[in-house]
Each structure stands twice: as C-alpha cells, then as structure tokens.
C-alpha cells in the first residue's frame, strides 16, 4: 500500500492546561505530512478554555472539538469514536506532547509497510521545560533536548512518561475501554495495546521523534496524583488476578507490581536528587503510600467478611 493512501487522524487529548495543549496543537499544525482529520477531545467542563480553537490560525485547520462527558478520566473512547469513521489510522497525542515535523510521515510509512501492525506505543522519554525549545525540536537535532540522566531514564516508571499511541482502525472493533486517571495515559494506552495484541502485531518503541513539554517545577501537591495512579495500578492488578480469560498465559505491556516498584524507586531518587521539586515529590509518595494502605485495608476487610460468612 502506498503511504499516501492511508488516511491518518490525530486526536489531541486535553486535560486542563491550556498552555501545554497549545504547544501540542501547534506541533500538529506544523507536521510536514498533514493529517486527514484532527480532533481535540476536551472534558465538557473545560470546553470553554478551547472555545477559539477552531478559528485559531496557529492550530491545525479543520480542527474538530469533541466535548467529553468524562472529566476525570482519559477520554480515549470519545476520541476513537469521533475519528474512526473517517480515517484508517488514529494517532492519540496527550496534552503536552510536541510532535516532531516528520512524526506522521513515519507513522504512515510504518503502517503502510507493515500491514500486520495494528498498534504502536511511543514512549516519549525526552523532556523540555520550555515550549520554545520544543518548537525548534526535530528528530535530527534530538541531542539538544535534555532527556535526563541515563540512570533515571533506565529506572523511569512508564506511567510517568508521556506516550503517543497509534492504532489501525480496522482492528479496533469491540475494544473495551476502562476508566483511567487523566494523568496516566500509559495505563489506558497499554490496556488498548494489550487488547490489540492478539489481533495483529503491536510494539512499544522509543522513537525520539516527540518531546514532552513541562510547565516548570511543579508546585502543587502531588498527593492526589500519586494516590490515583497507585490506586489504578492496584485495581488493574486485582482485576487481572480475578480474570481467568483475558490475561491467561498472555504477556502484557503493563506489569502492575513491577510498575509500582519503579514508581517508588523513581520518586525516591528524584526526591534525593532534586531539592526544587522535593515538596511535590514528597506529597506524591505520600499519596502512593495512602493508596497502598487503602488497598491493604480493603483486602483485610474482604478477608474478614469472608471469614465471618464461614
């Protein structure tokens, strides 16, 4: 199949930070290989923030706004539903990810060359604190963008990395969407990829063709984010333990136990190595610890209830 024959759609997933979303939309508008359709999925409650998105000349032309009813979970299903009838390939780009100019061309080429491929998850391990740095970014000048120390990169929890996912629409029939926290797109993406794995080839890559923009050192409390993320990992672990069909003998892109260890490891390393972010990281660890205690309490309560029933 000729690459140009594949219709590609880009779905930008907004959370709450207008500035980061703008950086993402600008990068989509700068793609050398323009997408056939672009949609911005925003929680209905914050749709007013993007009221001018369809007329903003810096944003992709023909941008469609999709208001999602879910305000605290990643609106992946809404994005897929809005885009699936119009394109062959859908690229999901979360808020704050800046795509290199050639990003879509690469996706198109891969999808056209390997028709057995049904999905690919790109781990974005390069981080820029300033959007202007990300704007001048391209895959060729990659080394100019700081990507963290080698040790940190090796230990990084995937759930804390930004990700870009593309899927082949043909293979996406009857997928199940679970509700995941907005901040942890890796959970949602890996869940989709796990479901697609038996239907064709899936893979995880670190292409280096995208960069994550941060809005400077985080000063807000990380307690809720840590608690949500750790709680979601706990729920996935418990669900898989119960499920005898879906994950029987199958490998997964997400191992909740290993991921929880990585999370703790990374956060402790950052706490030690980054005095500026220490309050945020400290509250994040406290949030995770609270979720851990809650899960243990729930387990004990269920065990007691079962014992009483006997």
């Amino acid at each position, binding site marked *: *199949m000729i690459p140009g024959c594949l219709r590609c759609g880009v779905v930008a997933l907004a959370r709450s930070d207008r500035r980061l979303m703008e950086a993402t939309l600008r990068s989509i508008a700068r793609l050398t290989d323009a997408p056939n359709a672009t949609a911005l999925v925003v929680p209905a409650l914050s749709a007013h923030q993007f009221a001018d998105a369809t007329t903003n000349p810096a944003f992709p032309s023909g941008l469609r706004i999709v208001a999602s009813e879910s305000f605290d979970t990643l609106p992946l299903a809404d994005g897929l539903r809005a885009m699936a009838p119009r394109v062959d390939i859908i690229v999901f780009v979360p808020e704050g990810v800046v795509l290199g100019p050639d990003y879509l061309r690469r996706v198109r080429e891969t999808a056209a*060359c*390997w*028709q*057995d*491929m*049904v999905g690919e998850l790109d781990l974005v391990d390069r981080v820029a604190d300033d959007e202007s740095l990300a704007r001048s970014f391209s895959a060729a000048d990659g080394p100019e963008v700081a990507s963290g120390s080698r040790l940190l990169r090796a230990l990084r929890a995937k759930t804390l990395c930004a990700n870009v996912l593309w899927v082949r629409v*043909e*293979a996406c*029939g*009857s997928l199940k969407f679970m509700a995941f926290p907005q901040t942890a797109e890796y959970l949602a993406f890996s869940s989709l990829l796990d479901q697609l794995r*038996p*239907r*064709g*080839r*899936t*893979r995880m890559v670190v292409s280096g063709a995208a960069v994550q923009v941060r809005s400077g050192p985080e000063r807000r409390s990380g307690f809720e984010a840590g608690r949500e993320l750790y709680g979601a990992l706990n729920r996935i672990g418990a669900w898989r333990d119960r499920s005898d*069909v*879906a994950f029987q003998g199958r490998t997964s892109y997400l191992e909740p136990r290993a991921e929880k260890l990585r999370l703790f490891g990374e956060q402790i390393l950052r706490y030690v190595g980054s005095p500026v972010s220490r309050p945020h990281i400290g509250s994040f660890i406290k949030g995770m610890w609270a979720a851990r205690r809650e899960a243990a309490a729930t387990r004990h309560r269920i065990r007691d209830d079962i014992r009483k029933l006997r």
Partner: protein
Amino acid sequence: MKVAIIFATDGSDGEDAIVAPFVSAGFIDGLRHNGVEPVLISVAPDHDGAAGGRVQPGSPLLRCARDGLAALIVGERPDAIQTFGPEHRLAAIWSLAADQPLGHCVSCWRGDDAEASAFAMLSLAAARMKRASRHIDGLIGTSRAAVGRLIADGWFPDAAFSVILPPPVERSGVAAAVPGPHAADPVFGIYDPLASPDLVAFASHAIDLTGRRDAVRMKIAVRNPTIGGGPVSFVAAAGVDAFLSAVDVLVVPAYDDSIAQAVIAALQSGKSVIVPDRSGAAELIEYGRHGLMFAAGSAYHLANAMNLVSQSWSQTPVLLAEGGPAIARTDPAADAQSFAAVYRRLVSAHASERDDARGFSHG
C-alpha cells in the same frame, strides 16, 4: 514476470482445502492477466521419483520431492519465488531459494496457536527455522494475527514489508436474502466439513452458556453427520449454498482459510456471521457491520455474541448484509491483481537489498 509458487503441504484434506483456491483457474488466470506467469510447484516429502515431472497431465501443478526442487528452480528460472505452507516445513526450501526474490504467504492453518507455541518451546529446531526465514524478502498474510505472531516470535527478521490479503474465493451461486423482520429465533449454523469432536463440544458448551439451551437451535454441517441431540442437529456438508439457505447465522468457532468460502458465501447471501477475532476472518468482517466477533477460544464470549444476535433478531434483522467490500476483495481476479503487485514489490525489495549489500561491500 515468472513466479514460482511453491506449496509445501502434507497432502491432508485440511491443508489441500486451504491450498485449493490458490491453484484455482480464476486465480491463475487473474495472475496471467496481470502479467505474472505462475509456475505452481507442490513439494512433499513423500513424493519420490517424480522430481520435476508433470505427474498429472493437464494439471498446472508440478509435483516434486524436496531434493528435486533445486533442479526445477534452475530449469524454470523464475523472477521471484513465493512459498506457501506451514512455516516449520519450509526452512529447507527457503535456504535453497536464498538468492532469489523470496516471499512467503502466511495462512491460517487449523490449530495454528498450539503449533506456534510448540515451536517456541523446541528452541533448537525453532532457532534453525527462524534462521532460515531470514531469506524472506516480503510477506503476504491472510491474517494480521498470524503474521504478527510470527514476526513477534522472531521469524522473518529481514523481511521488508508485510501485506494482508484474503484468500481468493470463487463466487457462490447463492442469492442474497431479502432483509426483513424475523419473527422467530435465528437458526445458527456451523459449516465445517473437518470439524473435530472438540469443536462440536466447544459449540455445545457455548450453547449451554447462552442460558437458553431450549430456545437455541443449531445445525452443524460435517462430513460424517451423526444424530444430533438437544439443540444441535448434524447435517451432511454437501454444499455451502444449500446449507446457508437453511440457517440464519453462520457461526465459525475455529477458523482456517478453508472456511473463508463459507464466510463469503454467508455475506453474499446476507446472513449474519460470528467469527473469532484472532483469525483471517477478522480481516473479512467489519465488527457490527458485517457480523460479530468473539474472543477466539472463549465459549463464554461466543455465547455472548449468540445472545446478542438472538436478542436483536426480531427488531433489527440486519447486523450485516453489507459485505460488499469483503466480497470484492476476495474475488479471485481482484486478489490475483493484488498478489501480482506484491510480486513486483518483492522483486524491487530484493534488488534494493542487493544494491545495498553491494554498496556496503564496495564501501
């Protein structure tokens, strides 16, 4: 362009049924019409003295032993070679044809999953075969799942592309049913001449799991019908068209490429289909539009799909009836055109790889 298409099957009914569409007159004529002169070669370990000889007068299929294949290839001088058969039988042939533009067609065979996992465990044998598979320049597959699983397992490391094409299916003579409201529950049907007792037990288990054993009716067409019991009745697998006229929904509990004909005939006649999601059938069916899918091997999910069809049967007679694109893609002439395009791509991929190698050695 001359292309040698090498079949390495064991001569069993199951494998012959999968190969048959690729030696059909419609497909061969389609290849010729698109500028490809096919040389069909069947290689079987038990063919002895007929190496390179035309054993069936009038048949386009050359039969030879593996030892005679090299001489046959030298004699025919094809521009490209495409192999066809279970991968574990092809390692020697791939090594033999290493210098030529070499493609392989990955098909859906019965019991594919079990076979693949068995070979993943036999590490030495598997490693040898995977090593031989590096000679493959490009892949054609009837199923994304099958091709993806092999590549993920380390097969075909040097392939430059993969193309998903359905097997060619001769047009059925069955007329399209007129969609209209249905009063009664649907009659489910399984058309599988080679159905094993396990497959029948699987279908029966799925009926139990629907929770409506008394209401569900199912006909199973097999080669040797026995007397059915309960909701299941067995009929002789005489012809797919006749069978489809007696059922409302075609159920495919286990898929191999020989079942494609029944699936396409069902689409052509406007019948609903329920197929496993990890098979080549998934490339033919658009979920919810042409039919439903269930998680392969799960009787529970098959039961869910059957219930979904039953529940909506009286109100929405159409889950499907829009199988036009799938029918068009499996047309032998259209399929042959796509195969011819792949053969040309194969030759150019091999040439560019050779040029790269030459450049590297000179550089």
